[in-house]
């Protein structure tokens, strides 16, 4: 891991004042969201099952994945979004990278989760929806960051160019 994803995570939190505006709100939403967790998770895997490639990736381990998904969702609302949180999320990203799941799937599933959260939380008011979407966006940023870093590392391996050089070269683009 380089520092770029962590830096972006910290910058994004500052950018939308996450720690002040949204982090304190999230634990209060946990009960509502977890009441619907089964339905959200089922919808998540149903959508994946509709895609031929994604269906193959999750085939035979949906129940196990649903359990990890539940833990992931609970952690969204734990109220702690520091270094340990980042590291756990980055590891999830690395797991998907290693499993060769195209980042496209993560993007579309995140979109589907956004819609589910908005639907469930709309009755709790705008700030509730905003907070849930803010943490989902941060999670997606970390997971996609792991993909980005993996691509840079592979580019570096195949060309022999170190990461600093690759960044410098792109600055001339």
């Amino acid at each position: 891991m380089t520092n770029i994803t962590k830096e972006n995570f910290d910058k994004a939190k500052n950018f939308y004042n996450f720690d002040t505006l949204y982090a304190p709100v999230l634990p209060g939403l946990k009960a509502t969201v977890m009441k619907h967790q089964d339905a959200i998770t089922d919808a998540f895997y149903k959508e994946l099952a509709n895609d031929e490639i994604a269906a193959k990736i999750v085939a035979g381990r949906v129940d196990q994945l649903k359990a990890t998904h539940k833990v992931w969702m609970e952690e969204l609302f734990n109220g702690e979004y520091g270094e340990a949180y980042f590291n756990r999320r980055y590891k999830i990203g690395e797991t998907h990278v290693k499993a060769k799941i195209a980042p496209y799937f993560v993007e579309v599933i995140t979109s589907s989760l956004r819609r589910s959260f908005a639907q469930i939380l709309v009755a709790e008011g705008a700030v509730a929806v905003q907070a849930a979407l803010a943490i989902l966006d941060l999670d997606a940023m970390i997971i996609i960051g792991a993909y980005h870093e993996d691509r840079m590392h592979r580019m570096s391996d195949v060309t022999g160019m170190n990461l600093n050089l690759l960044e410098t070269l792109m600055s001339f683009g």
Partner: protein
Amino acid sequence: MATKQEKINAILNDLKMATADIQGLGVISPDGMMIADQLGGNQGDATAAMGAALGSLAKRVTTTLKVGEFQEVNIRGSNAGILLFDIEGRAALILTVSKGANLGLVFLEARQAQEQLAQTI
């Protein structure tokens, strides 16, 4: 006592004086930064980055095709040439040479500078 920078510049000065076929020269880091720039013009930053890219890729190809240790790259353009010499993976010496240059002499002198730079950097 001369600083490292002064020693590097002195080696480049000597090399440049050795033959009029050498138009410009510089030493670059593997990160694509200019360590010493006597290339002339204002392309230094881009040259350093692209030179380092060239060296890294050449080294990678050399390893993949198992042709021994990477030593140098020789590019011939229609107006002039570019030579790049590895300095033990820690840096690279880049030269631009005139069209029709006496490459025998240029290589001889450049390899000497390459050795001196390896001891300095």
